[in-house]
């Protein structure tokens, strides 16, 4: 009988997002702010993903994050912290370079997209129903993100009362970050086996 792993990273990141939300002073220090980043506050590229604008914004992202992160950690898929860090950083850099008009950004959904993509890619290499479920979920996620990128807006965003625009680029970058990490791990897998 194997003991279920505790999803430590998932819980730590969720706790960070919650703490930042309830301490607005922290949110102000950590939000992706283009002007502040230009003035040297580069941590905002990374930390902007942990800031949220409203309780609805936070809840939607946290539910999705807890599902994806918990499955990844229970399954024991490796390099999850690397995925979290690299996808967060890539999202920040991509927004800074590709979205010059975007002055502020906040939200964990890009990292959630990365986690789900990574989970699905790992799941596709397993056997049984889980493999097909992962393939279907990944196909759905990619299709939705592509449509969002083409139309330039979110599908069915319910957080309508907020004064922010959805940024589908963050979801695309999250998917790409997970794909790159997965490919890197596949390519370097024989090498790692050899060094061991």
């Amino acid at each position: 009988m194997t003991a279920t792993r505790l999803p430590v990273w998932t819980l730590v990141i969720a706790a960070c997002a919650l703490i930042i939300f309830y301490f607005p002073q922290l949110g102000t220090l950590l939000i992706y702010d283009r002007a502040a980043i230009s003035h040297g506050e580069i941590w905002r590229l990374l930390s902007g993903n942990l800031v949220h604008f409203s309780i609805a914004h936070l809840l939607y992202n946290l539910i999705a994050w807890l599902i994806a992160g918990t499955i990844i950690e229970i399954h024991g898929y490796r390099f999850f912290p690397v995925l979290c860090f690299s996808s967060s950083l890539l999202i920040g850099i991509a927004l800074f370079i590709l979205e010059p008009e975007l002055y502020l950004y906040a939200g964990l959904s890009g990292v959630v997209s990365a986690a789900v993509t990574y989970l699905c890619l790992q799941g596709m290499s397993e056997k049984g129903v889980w493999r097909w479920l992962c393939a279907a979920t990944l196909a759905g996620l990619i299709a939705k993100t592509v449509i969002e990128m083409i139309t330039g807006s979110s599908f069915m965003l319910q957080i309508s009362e907020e004064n922010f625009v959805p940024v589908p680029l963050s979801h695309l970058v999250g998917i790409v970050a997970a794909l790159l990490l997965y490919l890197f791990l596949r390519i370097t897998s024989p090498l790692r086996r050899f060094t061991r």
Partner: protein
Amino acid sequence: MKRSSISIFIALVILLFYAALMSGCASGTTKHATSVVDYLFPKTKDPVVTPGIPVLTLPLRVGIAFVPAATGKDGRESRTSSGFTPFQGGGDLSLTEKRKTDLMQEVARNFKKYPFVKNIEIIPSAYLTPGGSFANLDQIRTMLELDVIVLLSYDQVQFTDQTLSFTYWTMAGPLVVPAQKNDTHTMLDAVVYDIQSRKMLFRAPGTSLINGSSMLVDQSQELRADGDKGFSEAAQSMIINLNEQLALFKEKLKERPEEYKVVQTPTYIARTSSSGRGGGGSVDNVMLMLFVGLGVCFLWIKGRS
């Protein structure tokens, strides 16, 4: 002879009537007032309240309420009258709950346009107890989740002078109808308080003066109309002053950062950003359903194995 004596009698009656009118010139006042000082610092309680440093987390949740009138021993609202105040019951100046709500909505409409205001709650009078002080404000703050409250008070005085008269020529001769000169002075006062720190942020008054006249028979109706108009005019004047005081307060915030602490939330920064647009990475309904479905399937498979 008989005819001339009748004429003299009529002339005498008219003369006496005029004399009665001249000698009977009377005046009276009716006053209705509520006071923020009486509400926040009632005599029975310790008036010493040490304000702290207010922390204004933007955008603010604002409440707006009329302070209740101080009650007498019998528990009824106080109203003072003096002198000649005929038909006073009809000219009752006290604000009805509906009129208070209308005035508060007028003020709220003006404030809603500011990005630093998240929402404005109109607080019914029943929520405020006479002399409730900051303990009462704390209850309201907890109940309605407010940061700042705008306390409105009013002072309306109506002066009635019986100095006018209208003369009508009728078939039987001149008919003199006594009339009134009415002055309605109204003042509305808005005091903005940070509830937690008990610090007054700023205040703004609004005043109005209505000069009217009426016949004795229409007096109560006329007084009521003047009173109502007085409140409307005072509210408009107060809104203008509130905007001016708010601009001054903003300057004060910049000049004296040690006295007021301002925290801008990410929502506020995104809302007020003039440099470009604010964006959010958010999971929508479709994504959420997809991920929840995956999670349920994962649990089902794990349960089976």
